[in-house]
């Protein structure tokens, strides 16, 4: 692992960096990747980097390097390690040829779970596989079962929210994300995500739009409070406040104390626009540095243009 790669800087959702990392796999794994190293030492950081590399290799289709990573991990932690079992399942899913092979993976997961019912990585893989096989109802049921056993798993709550949202169950999704926020109250991206969900739900025809919209504004505000110059938070704040103002949900003196008055919303919108403009100006100066978030910047510029032209 002597290669000069800083795996921690890899943003998982960023395709270019994943590709870049996977291309370095042969260099990191050394000239003979199939032979597992005899030493069983190494820092925890090295192994988490190896895991990242494994994921990047699988994503880019470099199954051979992925297999080498997996071999090393199972050599160190043993094939019965729960996390290694999860990764192993991931590898089998990625290399599965057709639907029948995937069904076989599912059967295998169920067999493992019947032996040890609280094998969390495998439980998660099972949910993911059910979702991937277009069985969202089963996936939701399995996930709820997982959360019954482990109610403090914020990742699972977020996944549940995403599943509910994909099924059009907005209020359940919002509830799940609120649960996740109870576990990780300072997660600024989850606050922004909840704001987005509330914003989407407030556009439904039979919803309590003023209450949802106002809650959405609150969560975007919290995400900005937790993180300086958070582009996503400002973007959402502008959208949410302007919808509240346009749809006439903003009163001078609202009857519900949780709904912000019109003056505050106006001020928030102005503040959001001003800060977003500053962010966009400061970031477009050196384009290279913002390569991974370029699409965000473009979206922000479009939003600003819309508001300046109207």
């Amino acid at each position, binding site marked *: 692992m002597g290669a000069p790669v800083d795996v921690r800087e890899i943003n*998982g959702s*960023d395709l270019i960096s994943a*590709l870049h990392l996977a291309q370095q796999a042969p260099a990191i794994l050394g000239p003979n990747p199939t032979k597992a190293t005899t030493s069983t030492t190494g820092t925890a950081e090295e192994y988490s980097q190896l895991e990242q590399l494994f994921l990047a290799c*699988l994503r880019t289709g470099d199954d051979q390097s992925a297999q080498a990573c997996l071999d090393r991990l199972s050599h160190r932690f043993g094939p019965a390690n729960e996390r290694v079992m*999860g990764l192993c399942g991931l590898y089998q*899913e990625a290399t599965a040829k057709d639907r029948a092979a995937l069904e076989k993976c599912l059967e295998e997961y169920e067999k493992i779970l019947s032996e040890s019912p609280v094998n969390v990585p495998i439980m998660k893989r099972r949910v993911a596989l059910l979702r991937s096989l277009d069985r969202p109802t089963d996936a939701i049921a399995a996930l709820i079962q997982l959360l019954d056993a482990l109610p403090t798993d914020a990742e699972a709550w977020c996944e549940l929210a995403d599943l509910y949202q994909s099924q059009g169950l907005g209020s359940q999704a919002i509830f799940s994300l609120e649960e996740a926020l109870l576990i990780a109250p300072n997660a600024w*991206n989850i606050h922004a995500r909840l704001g987005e969900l509330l914003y989407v739900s407030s556009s439904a025809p039979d919803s309590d739009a003023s209450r949802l919209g106002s809650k959405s504004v609150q969560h975007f505000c919290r995400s900005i409070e*937790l993180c300086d110059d*958070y582009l996503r938070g400002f973007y959402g704040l502008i959208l949410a406040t302007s919808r509240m103002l346009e749809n006439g949900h903003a009163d001078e003196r609202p009857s519900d104390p949780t709904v912000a008055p019109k003056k505050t919303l106006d001020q928030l919108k102005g503040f959001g626009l001003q800060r977003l403009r500053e962010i966009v100006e400061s970031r477009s100066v050196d384009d290279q540095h913002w390569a991974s*978030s370029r699409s965000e910047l473009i979206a922000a510029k479009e939003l600003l243009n819309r508001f300046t032209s109207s």
Partner: protein
Amino acid sequence: MSFLSKLVTLFGLVLLTHAGYSAHEHTVLFNNTRLALPHDIIVETLVAVVIVSIGLVLGADKLKPISWRDWAGQIERDGGARNPYLGLEERYGFWDIRAQVEPVLAMALRLCSRVSGIVVEHALTISQAKRKEFGDWMRGQDLPAKQ
């Protein structure tokens, strides 16, 4: 540590050593008279401590933000990769690997087409067989560059 801070610290340490040595010699010389330490030695010690402190402060690493929003803002400005809550949105435990693969392949092909000027849009429909080919190509292309 910059050169200046090293120099200042070294100077301070020399002064401190000198003061210590002087104090030692003084006690040896005036052992039985029980004279108090002369003021210049005391002043030299204090000045030396101040100089060493200044040198160390000058050479300290850049301060890290202690308020949560500054710290989080810095992470976002660096592209958000170090966000400890990124896992809640990426959710590696629930990764649908088969949905992850194709966007990467498509992106790679698009990058290639930009470089070589060849239109490969038709190649974007990638089957599992292609996935393997692509993996081999990725390895093959990288090896000579790294050796």
